[in-house]
């Protein structure tokens, strides 16, 4: 999986995602397409993708196992993977790179990298975008740039999203407003990763998303992203350090409790597990813990594997009642180091 590779600054940044959207001239946008338009677009994109070794699947031909497999890569939404519509997915041999066909835009290129690396995520997506632009008639106007059914993405069609874990900022009074002001200054948006019922128990995990696509160059977008992410990392580290110094006993206690619980628990619901992982993150670099075996690799592995997977989302399938038990089992084996 894309998240198995080492990344930069993974104490704070879980992953970076870049999405580039493109549409093909000569076809209406997706909402106005006929079935045969959709088939034609699928065929054209498939053809262009095969020139650079991308594998093609149609979502209407996938079985359940394949759906889960594709969904769990993190590239596509359940609405696409479960959709009865004529969606296509191109999968690159590079981990974390894929193309979704006929979902809102004709072509949505998705690139995910572990940790903090906006430029790498962008380059991988751009490489595919340039290939499609050279080999297909892509809708473009000098005035508006790359055309899209959504006004919000017309222009570069490039959006950056960075997933960050910020328990230090969350637990420091006054730090979250500092962060939101900064994000506002860059004209980005921030979302919290919430629970399924929409309630927000602290999970300490947020995504920050770029918004502007017009009147901005790719260089400016990436420069802005890098600066903003660097600011967040700095702020989060200083909050963690601060908390661990000023509330040493409390953090030590929670850190060790989280460690012990994760090591032996038998049932783990998603938000509890995320809360405990956040305590590990908070203390890992700033409290002394020579007597236990916990590394950033383990903490990141936990974060990425505990997150919801296909079974949590699909609505029409039987509910898997032993999901918390399965999750606990997975957590225990990561803690033991059985899963490297």
């Amino acid at each position, binding site marked *: 999986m894309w998240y198995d590779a080492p990344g930069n600054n993974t104490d704070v940044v*879980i992953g970076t995602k870049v999405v580039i959207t493109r549409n093909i*001239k000569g076809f209406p*946008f997706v909402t*106005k397409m006929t079935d045969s338009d959709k088939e034609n677009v699928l065929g054209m994109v498939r053809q262009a993708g095969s020139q650079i070794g991308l594998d093609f699947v149609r979502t209407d031909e996938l079985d359940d196992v394949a759906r889960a497999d594709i969904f769990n890569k993190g590239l*596509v*939404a359940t609405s696409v993977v479960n959709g009865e519509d004529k969606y296509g997915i191109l999968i690159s041999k590079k981990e974390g790179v894929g193309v979704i066909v006929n979902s809102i835009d004709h072509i*949505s290129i*998705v690139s995910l990298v572990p940790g903090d690396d906006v*430029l790498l995520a962008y380059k991988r997506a*751009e490489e595919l975008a340039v290939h499609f632009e050279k080999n297909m008639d*892509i809708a*473009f*106007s000098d*005035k*508006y*740039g790359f*055309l*899209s*059914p*959504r*006004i919000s993405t*017309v*222009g570069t069609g490039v959006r950056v*999203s960075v*997933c960050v874990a910020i328990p230090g900022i969350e*637990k*420091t*009074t*006054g*730090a979250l407003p500092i962060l939101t002001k900064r994000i506002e200054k860059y*004209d980005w*948006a921030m*979302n*919290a990763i919430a*629970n*399924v*019922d929409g309630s927000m128990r*602290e999970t300490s*995990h947020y*995504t920050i998303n770029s918004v502007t696509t*017009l009147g*901005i*160059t*790719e260089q400016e977008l990436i420069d802005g992203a*890098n600066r903003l992410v660097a*600011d967040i990392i700095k*702020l989060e580290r*200083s*909050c963690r350090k*601060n908390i661990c110094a000023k*509330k040493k006993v*409390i953090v030590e206690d*929670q850190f060790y*409790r989280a460690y012990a619980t994760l090591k032996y628990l038998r049932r783990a619901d998603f938000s509890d597990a995320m809360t405990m992982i956040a*305590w590990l993150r908070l203390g890992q670099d700033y409290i002394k813990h020579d007597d236990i075996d916990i590394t950033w690799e383990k903490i990141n592995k936990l974060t990425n594997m505990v*997150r*919801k997977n296909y079974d949590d989302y699909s609505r029409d399938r039987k*509910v898997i*009642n032993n999901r*918390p038990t399965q999750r606990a089992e997975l957590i225990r084996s990561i803690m033991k180091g059985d899963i490297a």
Partner: protein
Amino acid sequence: MRCQRCGGLITNSFTRINGTLLCENCARELKVDDMFKRQATFFEQAFPMLGELTNGIMGTPSDLDFGNSKIKCPRCGTSLRELDSKGMLGCIECYNTYNETILKNILKKQGSSDYIGRKPGEIANIEVSEIPEEASPAPSVKVEVTPVNDSKPESNSSISVLDKIKDADWSTIPDNEIEAGMKAAAQAEDYQLAAKLRDELKSRKEGN
């Protein structure tokens, strides 16, 4: 200070989205009033918020009378009303059709109205620039650590709520219990039940 969407005077709090200043009301309508309550979807969905945001920005009834407008895209037939409700253009020709009416306005709000990105087929030669030491202000902040409950409070209570709800005739159960049941079901990861209860609540609220 005035809201850049409705033009109203901003008295209370405001939100700045994509360079656009919004009053509290408009922010709520655009569902950007409290981004912390909104669900992020990093791993599984491509930016749903943007779609909703456009939806909202496009629905500016104070600027345009959608009901009486006869404008239609000659190629795909997308009407102004449709554009308003779906927030989506139908084809490339829509950009010409709506150019002088609403796009200009909306695109101005998108930041600037001129495209300055790369041309098709070209590579953006991005240079890695040093990040200036402008530095986030060292947070002079109060450290507050929220203690975590040792016991899991939901373990017994939520199971009994669920048992009650599962077998009951929902019309006999009050809203607050349905809501509690929905949360309990989500906690217990019975998402099917949680979704049904959410729909039940929703239809009750709409019914009133």
